[in-house]
């Protein structure tokens, strides 16, 4: 009786077995996805990465300095301010300034003075970061906002 097949060739027992198995697998799948959803951070904890630098007058034209704690290079030339990250786009090491640009100590990537890759495994050039004016007239670097290569803040 229970093994009698209907016109589709599936018996009631088979149908129920497959249904039970299916719902079990769906439940397990859901639980697994849920289990991985938990470790995925909803909010990314971390300090703000907007750095206020104060009066632009502190940085004369020709400035080329490294903000050590923030891992950002700050430049000011005749055209304006610009900031380039010191974090290598390859695997996150901190690049150093060399005569002809930047060099990464970890895997030998080299970058031109404007940050584009010259040599090595880095998949892309060093990121240019947004430099903007604060309402009180100072300059600010936002390490979370990338801008196009060559974008300078005219002061």
């Amino acid at each position, binding site marked *: 009786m229970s093994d009698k097949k209907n016109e589709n060739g599936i018996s009631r027992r088979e149908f129920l077995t497959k249904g039970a198995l299916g719902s079990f697998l769906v439940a397990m799948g859901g639980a697994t996805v849920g289990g991985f959803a938990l470790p*995925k951070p909803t909010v990314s904890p971390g300090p703000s990465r907007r750095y206020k630098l104060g009066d632009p007058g502190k940085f004369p034209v020709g400035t080329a300095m490294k903000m050590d704690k923030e891992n950002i290079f700050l430049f000011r030339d005749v055209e304006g301010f610009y900031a380039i990250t010191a974090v290598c786009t390859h*695997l996150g090491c901190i690049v150093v300034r060399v005569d002809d640009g930047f060099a990464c100590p*970890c895997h030998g990537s080299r970058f031109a003075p404007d940050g584009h*890759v010259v040599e090595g495994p880095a*998949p892309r050039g060093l990121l240019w970061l947004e430099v903007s004016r604060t309402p009180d007239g100072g300059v600010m670097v936002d390490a979370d906002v990338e801008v196009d290569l060559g974008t300078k803040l005219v002061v």
Partner: protein
Amino acid sequence: MEKPALTQFIDNLKSVPDAARRAFLKNGLPESERERSQMSFHNFFLHMQSVRTHKHSLRWTYTLGLGIIATAALIILTATGVLLMVYYKPSTELAYYSMKDINYVVFGGRIVRNVHRWAAHLMVVAALLHMARVFYTGSYRRPREVNWLIGLGLLVMTLALSFTGYILPWDQLGYWAATIGANIAQSPREVTDAFGITHAVDVGGLGKQMLLGASFVGEDALLRFYVLHCVVLPGLLMTLLGLHFWRIRKDGGLSRPESVDKPGAPDYKPVQPGIFKPGTEKTYGLMALVKGSKPTVGTAPENTVMSWPHLMYAEAAVFALTMAITLVLGYFLNAPLKEIANPMVPENPAKAPWYFLGLQELVSYSAFMGGIGIPTITLVSLALIPFLDRKGSDVGIWFGGAAGKKVFWQSVLFGAMVTVGMLALTITQGWLRTWIPNIPQLVITVVNPGTVLVGLYAWWSLSNIKRHNSIRMGAVAMFTVFLVGFILLTYVAAIHRGPNWHFYWLHSQWPPH
């Protein structure tokens, strides 16, 4: 007449030691073979192994004791690891100082940490060599395919445990290893960026986030690595290891050549007439009906010895040796602890521990290919071996015989030549970006010294299949060239890479800084 209960109680109290001993050691030390077999299957820990062991499995020239060395190292790691957990504090503020405490203040802390470190290295070495032994004796073939796969899982777990382990001290090595590891997890962006689909499918970003629990390497990351190292990975490893041991029994013990069970083999003894003589002490019970083509009643039992004591002695000896090696190394050679993590200055050069240096050399060509692509290709190829190389009667024979030995040496030569050639080319001439400055990244991701080597290795393997008309020879060729490549890349990265990952013949040529 029964004794009064109180007298009985006092008698029982007096005989507690005896009664307890009888309860734990049911039969005392075994004297007859029957008692020895009971020893094996009445004991939870011993019953993992069969009551009788094939003589061939006890030849140290066959197994080299490598699996047991890895297991012994794991036991040592568990014990020393728990001791270290007592003082270690998984927080970026305290981790480094708790390591200093363990090294300089805690009683026995230095030696426990050193032994932990040396046992970890030994486990990686033993696991790698064990895999090579199993491969070269063709022991991955049916019915052992699944156990080969479990073994690969164990290798991955071992390496993952090593990686998460050396992050924990939060010194310069640990901090930059975590940074590099997280960025390797993010490196699929190298490909998604090239197609401009990162905003839609950011596999890399997700991987990094899951690993770090944040967008940067900090408190959350350290805690995650700690949980992985102390709970998740050991749990998975132990589970897989249990399966690994269980499957050894299910698959009929260790592999051995067919010839050792045939007349003419040195250990061969013909079936004793009268083994089933009526009236002997032995009794036989029907335990189960199993499917199978070969009942082992014929010749096989005659080549076995009692596991207690023969196998137990051998295992205890290997364990003692492992313990001795790690203790001596741990006593004389201190585990390194570099300066406290400094997110502003990476070490130059920032080198991973030796077992990852081959990979580090590969990521210095392309982060995605070296860190994810080529390791995946390697693992998948290894996993496919037992399903591609299925036939053959050379199981249990090193390299599958004289022809295989020849292929092995030819492959060593070929592997060394192409790997050294490729390295020489890259070191002296640079790579695509040096020649064509504006080349798209995708081209470098696909065509870099690492992938070219993999391609050459694959070609060598296929040509060996064709030349010898044997899939096994192709497998031997492939495994060997990969092994040689791994060793050479590791060597170059360890010895000849200096500041900025430049090539130097000698450490003394490094520029001062």
